């Protein structure tokens, strides 16, 4: 890469932003990502050579930057994106991970997947078409997955004569819809032309009326704060470390990734579900004892008392326990093409580091994700459908609402016959 990245210690300490992109089939999403990579100087010569050669072979008018994001053979042949692809780029200010998800209607599940780890979503709109059904669907999913920052990218401004009026119409229309979504706290609309590069990395000379940031500038500077919960102490035990060596004869460490709150040596803790209380002896690591551990860090905790603790248990603090219940209410997105979800169906449910069995007690409703209307007369979930269900689990889950904590409020359902992941769930 021929970027002007400073090589100093500071560069070892950069911020990481994960974002997802959503657009309909011809909104120019791949071109936008290609443009971001190319104009921010994150492409390589051999990649560009391959792209130029393919563009020429296909008879494209321009060097088709969309080809930079093409992956599998089927995609190149059919000119489509079939799955979530992850892209990486960096500027001197930040590192970025893009979850590149296709916008086609049958791929809702891919967008849900990409959104589950994203801090920000770029929702693309074709300036000629404005806000369409799929735009609403993308905004709804971003909200459902609790993405707080959204960029509305109004693309193909070159095809509407870079019209300010048209841009404002689209933004107003989007805001009318988005006002019904409450997890999105920060929305920025940017008029762009991914094809020509207007307002993607470089400021457009065609839209003097637009005074906001370019897309890259916004991505580099948007304050993400912390998407992690640093209030409710939650440490799902992932693995018990017992060295059985002379040096560490009695060592018993609980390894895991902090899912919420802050842990320090000396802290009083309660181990769930047993309810035993003890204190943290140390937070161990290969680099020596640590003063604290907080989300999303992985660490190893030792305790003052010997308590029987295994994978799936959770170390928490007194006075702020997680919810503990076998009756769960959740929103789900159905992922399976071959099976449908119905009342009384049984699945494996994987939540934090725990796996239990779960039975569907009731389908409360499904959501028409284009109108946000509830559907109450159809109790069967098919591929890409979203709605609310109630579940009963074989053992209590230790959880928080998804809205409060993504790590302790999310689960997946696994088909016990095929082992496929068939649903993503967000606990209410």
């Amino acid at each position, binding site marked *: *890469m*021929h970027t002007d*990245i400073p*090589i100093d210690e500071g560069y*070892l*300490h*950069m*911020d*990481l932003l994960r974002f997802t992109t959503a657009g309909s089939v011809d909104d120019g999403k791949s071109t936008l990502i290609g443009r971001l990579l190319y104009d921010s100087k994150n492409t*390589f*010569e*051999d*990649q560009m050579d*391959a792209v130029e050669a393919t563009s020429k072979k296909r008879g494209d008018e321009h060097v088709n930057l969309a080809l930079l994001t*093409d*992956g*599998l*053979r089927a995609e190149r042949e059919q000119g489509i994106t*079939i*799955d*979530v692809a*992850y892209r*990486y780029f960096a500027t001197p200010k930040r*590192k970025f*991970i893009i979850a590149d998800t296709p916008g086609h209607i049958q791929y809702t599940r891919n967008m*849900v*997947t990409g959104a*589950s780890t994203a801090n920000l979503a770029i929702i693309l709109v074709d300036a000629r078409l404005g806000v369409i059904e799929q735009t609403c669907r993308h905004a709804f999913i971003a909200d459902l997955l609790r993405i707080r920052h959204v960029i509305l990218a109004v693309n193909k401004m070159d095809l509407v004569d870079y019209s300010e009026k048209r841009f404002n119409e689209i933004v107003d229309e989007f805001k009318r819809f988005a006002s019904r979504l409450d997890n999105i706290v920060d929305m920025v609309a940017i008029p762009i032309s991914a094809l020509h590069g207007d307002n993607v990395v470089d400021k457009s000379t065609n839209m003097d009326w637009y005074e906001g940031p370019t897309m890259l500038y916004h991505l580099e500077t948007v304050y993400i*704060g*912390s998407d*992690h919960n*640093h209030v409710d102490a939650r440490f799902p035990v*992932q*693995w018990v*470390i017992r*060295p059985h*060596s002379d*040096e*560490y004869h009695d060592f018993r*460490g609980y*390894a*895991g*990734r902090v899912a919420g709150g*802050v842990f320090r040596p000396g802290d009083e803790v309660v181990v769930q579900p047993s309810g035993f209380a003890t204190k943290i002896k140390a937070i*161990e*690591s*290969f680099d020596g004892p640590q003063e604290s551990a907080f989300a*999303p*860090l*992985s660490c190893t905790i030792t305790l003052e008392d010997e308590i029987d603790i295994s994978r799936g248990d959770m170390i928490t603090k007194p006075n702020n326990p997680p919810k503990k219940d076998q009756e769960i209410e959740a929103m789900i997105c159905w*992922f399976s093409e071959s099976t449908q979800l119905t009342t009384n169906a049984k699945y494996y449910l*994987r939540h934090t*580091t725990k796996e239990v069995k779960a039975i569907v007690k009731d389908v409360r409703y499904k959501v028409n994700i284009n109108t946000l209307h509830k559907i109450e007369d159809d109790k069967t979930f098919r591929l890409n459908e979203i709605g609310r269900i109630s579940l009963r689990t074989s053992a209590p889950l230790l959880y928080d609402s998804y809205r409060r904590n993504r790590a302790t409020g*999310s*689960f*997946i359902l*696994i088909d016990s016959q095929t*082992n496929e*992941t068939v649903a*993503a769930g967000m606990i209410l």
Partner: protein
Amino acid sequence: MDEERTSYQVNHLAQLESEAIFILRETAAQFERPALLFSGGKDSIVMAHLARKAFFPARLPFPLLHVDTGHNFQETLDYRDQYVADLRAELVVAYVQDSIDQGRVQEEKGPFASRNALQTVTLLDAIEANKYDACLGGGRRDEEKARAKERFFSHRDDFGQWDPKNQRPELWNLFNGRKHHGEHFRVFPLSNWTEMDVWQYIKAEKIPLPSLYFSHQRDVVHRSGAMLAISDVVTAQPGERVETNAVVRFRTIGDMTCTGAVYSEAADMDTIIYEVATARQTERGTRADDKRSETAMEDRKKEGYF
């Protein structure tokens, strides 16, 4: 409050490290017989280092598995043995030569023969013989376009094959390692790392590397756009340009028949990081095995390649 929040900011390397350690522990927890694929290349070295951190102060709960083509650089093997001793880890070596001797694979003939493709059979045989149900690999999504679609937990059918159109969705921190008898998983804890992240991490963690990664002099032959080290298994053919004492280093390390060198005077970490930041070719641009066709990697992965 704001001030306190700021102190909980985690830089990109710490985030990537935490994620990789989570995946390594998840692999140990969800599978009965995992193994860590170790080639002596920088990605697998970083993997072994992360595994050491993940299970400290215990030893690794799984062996390192090296698929030895018999065409390795001696420096790689020396490094491997030293590193394994330092880790006090168990090393299992599967030899491509054995697969050839057993008639499991046909060795390519001619001066351009490579054992790279044969590794797949040796690897799959080793997985079956040792009943490994998960192989941890150092693959990264930024390496190659087919890998951009790869999962952390990558399901393989009972033929060891990857089906890119039928992958399990991965959300949040939840990884589904359930499988039927005979199936196995490839697990890629470094999925979200870039080449730059790997180098920065090696620097930050002061991880020793094989000398091949640093600038040195060696005799090379120019072949199909790549620059290969001349050795017992790579000899110059008539008409090929040979360069003696070229000042080179390797950006990736694999089999000698397909790992290309680059001109470089970078002799320390800082210079290498600068070189990576300013490189105009992708890392695998030096790999002859990817040049066989535009979808070379995709085809090999479907067959069960690393």
